[in-house]
């Protein structure tokens, strides 16, 4: 893919982020983008390989793109890996509309539906350690279009969240870490410091995606023009709406994140238990081998682990034990499994670089050309 960002640097990143965010929550729509700049033509496609349907409080079900292209550093043999995610429909928070927004014509029952997604999926590897790399909050208007301007509310939000309660104490957030791009606020973390041989080389970095779907119910708004006007009003007053409901929003987000990160925190405890036991297993086994006077037994142990002496045996035994316990696989029918062969590589397919001047949308139901 040609990198066209150098031609239109200012709006290219925003366009890409917008289309990516849009595509995430409208997975039934395939987006084909053709960019023509002078003599150069580049074509891009946004589409979901793995989709998940969710029923929200809305007549139209939500189709999320849960494709995950992240692959961890897997050692050795072929393993199952889930190429999708498992979004969780969270709570629905009713928010109050500030008076001056109502003066401008914004009426009805406004709510925010939370949907969370922890990606990549490691459910098939219950013993695998995970780290949280970032938390992304994405806001969508009632038509499921990403909100263009991210409210400042999300910049100050980290100060009100209790990260210790969430169990992500390595997640440091400050306003400079908050990246805001086309409806998305990202809080990044610092990588954990190396803490000795137990530092997980097989740990997987996960991100938390929190989708905030604005929903408005107004029996007096039915015409398309009215709907569009209302959505403009919502976006215009979004900052005030969020600030007006700061406490409720903070509590709701804290609760959603806590539920989502429960699995991550359980893994931490499991990992500590396994590591602690592994130390005892290693020391006890090596102790028996080291002080055994049975030469055949000692030789058999060294040969099977393909080492020369008990010192190498200890290292190989420990490494092997940590590896087999970390990569214990419990296949799940609900996962989108595929066999992947391991390399010592960490591959993450990031987003496309694009500059948009020509859109072509196609869906199963209809085709849009812009």
């Amino acid at each position: 893919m040609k990198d066209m960002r150098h031609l239109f640097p200012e709006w290219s990143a925003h366009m890409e982020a917008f289309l990516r965010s849009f595509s995430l929550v409208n997975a039934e729509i395939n987006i084909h983008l053709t960019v023509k700049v002078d003599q150069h033509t580049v074509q891009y496609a946004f589409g979901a390989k793995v989709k998940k349907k969710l029923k929200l409080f809305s007549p139209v079900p939500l189709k999320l793109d849960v494709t995950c292209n992240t692959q961890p550093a897997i050692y050795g043999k072929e393993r199952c890996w889930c190429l999708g995610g498992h979004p969780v429909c969270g709570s629905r928070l009713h928010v109050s509309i500030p008076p001056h927004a109502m003066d401008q014509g914004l009426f009805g029952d406004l709510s925010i539906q939370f949907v969370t997604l922890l990606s990549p999926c490691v459910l098939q590897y219950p013993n695998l350690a995970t780290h949280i790399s970032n938390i992304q909050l994405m806001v969508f208007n009632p038509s499921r279009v990403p909100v263009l301007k991210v409210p400042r509310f999300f910049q100050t939000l980290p100060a009100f969240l209790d990260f210790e309660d969430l169990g992500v104490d390595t997640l440091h957030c400050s306003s400079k870490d908050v990246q805001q791009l086309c409806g998305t606020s990202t809080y990044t973390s610092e990588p954990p410091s190396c803490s000795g041989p137990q530092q997980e080389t097989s740990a997987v970095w996960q991100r938390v995606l929190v989708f905030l779907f604005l929903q408005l119910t107004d029996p007096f708004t039915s015409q398309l023009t009215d709907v569009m006007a209302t959505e403009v009003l919502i976006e215009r007053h979004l900052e005030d709406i969020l600030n007006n409901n700061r406490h409720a929003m903070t509590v709701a987000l804290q609760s959603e994140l806590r539920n989502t990160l429960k699995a991550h925190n359980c893994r931490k405890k499991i990992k500590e238990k396994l590591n602690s036991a592994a130390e005892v297993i290693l020391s006890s086994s090596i102790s028996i081998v080291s002080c055994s006077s049975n030469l055949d037994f000692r030789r058999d142990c060294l040969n099977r682990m393909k080492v020369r002496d008990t010192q190498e045996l200890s290292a190989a035994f420990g490494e092997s034990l940590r590896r087999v316990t970390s990569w214990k696989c419990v296949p799940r029918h609900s996962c989108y499994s595929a066999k992947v062969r391991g390399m010592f590589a960490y591959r993450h397919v990031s987003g496309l670089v694009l500059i948009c001047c020509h859109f072509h949308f196609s869906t199963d139901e209809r085709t849009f050309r812009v």
Partner: protein
Amino acid sequence: LCYIILGIVTSLSQDEAPVLKLPNRSSWANISFDSTVGLQMNSGHSVTALRSDSPSSVNKFAQVLKILSVIYRLVQSNTYATKRDIYYNNTQLFGSQATVDSIVDDISCMLRAPRRSLHVLATSKGLISGDLCYMEEDGMRIDCRSSSAAVPVSSNIAGIRNIVSSAKFIIIVEKDATFQRLMDDDFCTKLPPCVIITGKGVPDMNSRLMVRKLWDTLHVPIFALVDSDPHGIEIMCIYKYGSMAMSFEAHSLTVPSVMWLGLLPSDLQRLQVPSDVLIPLTKNDEKKLSSLLQRPYLTDQPDWQKEMEVMQRTKVKAEIQSLAAISPDFLTNIYLPNKLRYGGWV
């Protein structure tokens, strides 16, 4: 023991999580009854798998390995340690003494080796008194004939030798309180020579080994004196038929010839024990009684079954101490002498 470690190394070399297989000592499906031995573990018993990659079993896996390494060192250096020593060596890993006790028995069962040969000793809790002298392995001579103080049961039964006794019978006493009462009343000197032994409730292995050793050496009748309640009957069955947990060592622990001397449920009616000292059976008592009646060994003991059915029917239980309600010295001066003289056992 080396095979276990080699098995773990082999699993790791094949990129598989090591698994330890422990015989399942708590399942009735693994136990069969033999009237000459008692309860014993079947050769094709089921096992419990401890996986090193499962959070629910990895702790126990580590504990077993740790104790195996301790045992290995003890055997290599020909030294001994008690279960208590092992526990205090790493209290954080084991959590409780009961964990160590259970794992030592699991290892004994897994390796098919008596605990003594693992160089792990258990502190005895039993007491013994009466016409009995023997020598401990270290050469110390033990004389149990003192009327004032009982002798603790040895912690090295296998090392006992030169047993000398003219006892005509042995009485296993369930409770320490009853044992002390017999000691206080000089019971062993009043009747034909005898030996009394107590495990102070559910007997430890050394008490059971001692009873078995006395049976093997002296070949005299062995009677059980227990409370007339389901718990007492169960304790008596442990001496006679063994326990599920230690069924893999039944041959050295059981004495199938033990006879039930008292306190029989039928004694309560016959002696007209005052009703105010009788205690109604609780729901748990009734459950235990029903469970005992279904045990495989009771089909061989119709007289025991009848006694237990009396208890089921009357729905009362009584301690041996309840005989004091008839008269203070009824137990040692009337009840036991008459029972022994006139064959009042089943």
